[in-house]
């Protein structure tokens, strides 16, 4: 049962198409797991539809616009249309569809790198406005204490973690801003796998040597 959901501003920014790609991946993944947020998101899409409907300025199309469009349609009849394809829901996959698309496969295709203390990460390729990574935290292990310099979203895909404030299980998303200073610990049980996006570099203040940070790209 998902307890921690996306907030309105994230859903609206994703619907408006202004969220950085890394955050959009977290939103798309949570929505794949949570019909409550899918319905909220489609509600915000309806606002976009209303905005399109009430546009006041009269903009003329070029002469022959419909004919040009019909020619375009005929030319791409055999090809896939240009809309963004949506990932399929697979019954036995361990990772949700949007994450699989960025990994290039399921959990066994993730290229993990150790960041010390048994914690592993895999940075996923997105535009540079923000970054997103998969984190693998063994049960019972603390993620090094870190402070935030911007917005950070952490979505649990497997296992659970607990910090000073709350517990986060599969599908839950933690929304942390710069004033949150926390020490998440993976709960006993299956190892914790999270999808974490941030628009600022994480600054670990715990036991991970600061000197190592430039090399591990944290």
């Amino acid at each position, binding site marked *: 049962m998902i307890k921690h959901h996306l907030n309105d501003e994230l859903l609206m920014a994703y619907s408006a198409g202004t969220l950085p790609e890394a955050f959009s991946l977290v939103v798309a*993944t949570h929505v794949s797991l949570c019909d409550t947020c899918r319905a909220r998101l489609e509600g915000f899409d309806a606002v976009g539809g209303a905005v399109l409907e009430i546009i006041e300025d009269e903009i003329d199309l070029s002469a022959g616009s419909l004919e040009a469009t019909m020619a*375009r349609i005929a030319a791409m009849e055999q090809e896939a249309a240009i809309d963004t394809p949506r990932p399929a829901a697979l019954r036995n996959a361990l990772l949700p569809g949007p994450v699989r698309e960025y990994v290039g496969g399921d959990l066994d295709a993730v290229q993990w790198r150790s960041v010390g203390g048994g914690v592993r990460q895999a940075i996923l390729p997105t535009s540079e406005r923000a970054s997103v990574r998969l984190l693998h935290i063994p049960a019972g292990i603390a993620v090094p204490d870190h402070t935030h310099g911007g917005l950070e979203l952490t979505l649990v895909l497997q296992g659970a973690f607990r910090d000073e404030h709350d517990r986060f299980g599969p599908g839950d998303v933690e929304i942390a801003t710069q004033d949150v200073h926390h020490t998440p610990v993976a709960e006993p049980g299956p190892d914790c796998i999270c999808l974490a996006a941030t628009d600022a570099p994480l600054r670990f203040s715990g036991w991970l040597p600061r000197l190592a940070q430039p090399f591990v790209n944290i």
Partner: protein
Amino acid sequence: MSEAVEKRAAWAAELELVASSRDAAAFAKVFAHFAPRVKAFLMKSGADAAMAEECAQDVMATVWHKAGSFDASRASAATWIFTIARNRRIDMLRRERRPEPEDLSWGPEADPDQEDAMTMQQETERLSAAIASLPEKQRVLIERAYFGDLSHSEIAEATGLPLGTIKSRIRMALERLRHRMSQEGIRE
């Protein structure tokens, strides 16, 4: 039933004709209404006239090809076309990939219920009317958000919208869909 709701239902019906029988006359009607709006939307989002024309044609060609995935019980024609235009804009102006949620579609043989579709068009109309009647300052803020003109922290100020009823209608449609998907899962 109000005239505006009838119009919305009519756009949905035209899209269904495009999907089921590749009806060029139905498409021409959809085009005449929506293509100028898509072009205006793209220009307000920062595209010049030539680029907006080019992309509006792309968007409308996608409407033709993807008409089969339009679901009138979950969205109005305007909403569905907005999502295609928005995705094209991200691709064009940002050159960024857009991660999309997993697909949840009715599938070819499971047509959504006509009554559900009509209720959804009524809810959309109610939402549009609510937005149109907002104080100008707030309405402009919402428009700017959807033209890609606000950062996600500025967007927080534009989020207080009356989305309650449309959200619960969509939620019901999703529940029916999940139910059907799980029944099909048992048959497999």
